[in-house]
């Protein structure tokens, strides 16, 4: 359904510097499944999502290489017209900030129906209305009629987030890309939104890419997990398997940094140091300067991706989880 092969991306910095933001990323997403993408801010996870729908401004891109294929379409080679057909109709985006992603001067109805008319200008009012109501119901609005004429500022944070989801669902895209859709929402509401999204992909056999820095949230929705660090895909595989026994030291540190809710009180363990900026990445493994397990070899060159048991992949010379095949 979606396959990314050896994709690298360099962006132009504001002062002409060239920033390598993604390095040799290879990923696959099957129909009807959900891929979680985890990483800190600055790890390249959102840039990858934008690249899949070719949403990055062309002026900002220095070079792209590799291959992104979605539903038979070669994204990097596609024309703008082909991409326009893709966005909204085949790929739906749920953005992080509903307050900035929604137009404050349009009602909820207008925001959602806009996508319908953009792709199907000849649709009848009744048909468009039907789609809008269905999307709102799927996004978890109990009585959508009440809110159709509301402006974004009249909706609560949770409702705005649902409205964003409805906008992404309205044309029933085969792929939904959700970029941190539940950050800054309280747990109870998060659970409702997440289980709603999860149900959506299960019932309709849609696929989803779910981006978050919170591994707990990712565990709740995704089947497979890809962990990003400083523009590199450091580990991928089945979500449960990775969280139970992380192979890359970065994944292990990320799991330990997660606040726990268990009987015994144990403070989360911080990761020392900070994420390197794209131009100051170490020569060796991208995590080598912060890694507690790093040896001399780790500082020499980027490790190749190796495959472990359970079809897990890791970009580390000395993975913590064994089972080489």
């Amino acid at each position, binding site marked *: 359904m979606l396959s990314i092969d050896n994709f690298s991306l360099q962006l132009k910095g504001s002062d002409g510097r060239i920033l390598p933001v993604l390095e040799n990323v290879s990923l696959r997403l099957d129909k009807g499944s959900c891929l979680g993408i985890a990483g800190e801010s600055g790890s390249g996870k959102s840039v990858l999502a934008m690249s899949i729908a070719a949403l990055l401004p062309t002026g900002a891109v220095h070079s792209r290489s590799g291959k992104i294929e979605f539903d038979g379409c070669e994204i990097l080679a596609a024309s703008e017209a082909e991409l326009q057909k893709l966005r909204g109709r085949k790929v739906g985006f749920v953005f992080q900030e509903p307050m900035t992603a929604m137009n404050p001067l349009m009602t909820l109805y207008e925001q959602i129906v806009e996508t319908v008319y953009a792709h199907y200008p000849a649709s009848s009012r009744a048909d468009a209305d039907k789609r809008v109501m269905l999307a709102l119901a799927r996004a978890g609005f109990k009585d959508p009629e009440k809110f159709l004429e509301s402006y974004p500022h009249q909706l609560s*944070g949770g409702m705005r987030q649902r409205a964003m989801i409805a906008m992404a669902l309205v044309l029933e895209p085969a792929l939904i890309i959700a970029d941190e859709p539940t950050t800054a929402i309280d747990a109870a509401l998060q659970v409702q939104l997440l289980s709603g999204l999860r149900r959506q992909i299960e019932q309709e056999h849609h696929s989803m890419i779910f981006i978050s820095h919170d591994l707990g949230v990712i565990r709740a929705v995704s089947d497979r997990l890809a962990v990003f660090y400083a523009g590199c895909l450091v580990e991928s595989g089945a979500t449960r398997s990775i969280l139970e026994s992380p192979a890359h030291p970065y994944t292990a540190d990320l799991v330990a940094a997660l606040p726990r*809710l268990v009987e015994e009180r144990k403070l*989360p363990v911080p990761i020392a140091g900070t994420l390197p900026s794209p131009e100051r990445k170490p020569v060796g493994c991208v995590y080598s300067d912060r890694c507690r397990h790093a040896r001399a070899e780790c500082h020499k060159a980027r490790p190749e991706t190796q495959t472990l048991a359970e079809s897990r992949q890791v970009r580390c010379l000395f993975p913590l989880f064994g089972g080489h095949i």
Partner: protein
Amino acid sequence: MNKVQGPDKVLEVSALSRSFSVEKSLLHGAVDRLRGVTPQSLRALHEVSFSIDRGETLGLLGESGSGKSTLARVLMGIYEPDSGSAKLCGKDIFGQTGNERLAVLRNMQMVFQDPFGSLDPRMTVRQIISEPLKIHGLMPAKEVDSFLVKALTDVGLEAGALDLYPSEFSGGQRQRIGICRSLMLNPALLIADEAVSALDVSVQAQILELLIRLRSQRNLAMLFISHDVAVVRQISDRIILLYRGNLVEELPADKLLSHGCHPYTRHLLEAALFLREGKCLPETAPTVSLAASGMGAGCCYLSVCPKAGKECQQRPLLHEIAAGHRVACHFAGK
């Protein structure tokens, strides 16, 4: 490190209430008044009482709209309360003006959620962290620099940071600057309003570690406000839970998982256990009602409570069911 001395109760809040009128356009408001319709109001805080001891961290949990931030703002004097009182180190916070108010508030400082929005982008770190000293007229005449550098190193920043601007720092470092600023006056109480919510998990842990270290070094009392159950439980000694402006439960942090018993507390815990520990959700979990329902005379949780019965038409009072454990639910402890 100079520890703050004084009475044992750093903060005592009693029956604090604050409501907001629900905004209407000037015209609609005027028409309503002519018709004799009383303007609608939203009760953001409803007779909330609690206290914090010296060196103690009180966690404040609640969903968005529960009144968490309103409480912090009322305490800081950003909003006036409708009724109720609060004492900081034995002195009344409300009803003071000018220099007296400034002197009281010196003992209470705030760390904000947004590490980008809460620092003036056009001020250097030197200006940012010395501003509280200037306002309170406490700028040391000599060796200002060594004083500021010491404050910075206390929060894990280097001396070189003094003449840089906020934009030159990462989110975690900016939060350290915010914490440094809040500690400049050596307050007895720190109010941290979602101080780690905007940060990445790995950085979150760094800031939590810093807050815990500073707390024990300075015997600092802290009101730690967050919607994240796991974080609040890890850092707090005691926890209070707010639901739509009402204090529904208060208990020691150690007892939250095992003894938390208000239906709202259980609901929050189940959601948090699902997200943090991958535990299954029970089928009976109530759905959150998004529309703000009217505030009747009954229990604030009535409209969504799975346990609701006849007695819930009357507002339950906060009553003690075990040492240090108070609940506002008719069914608690029965």
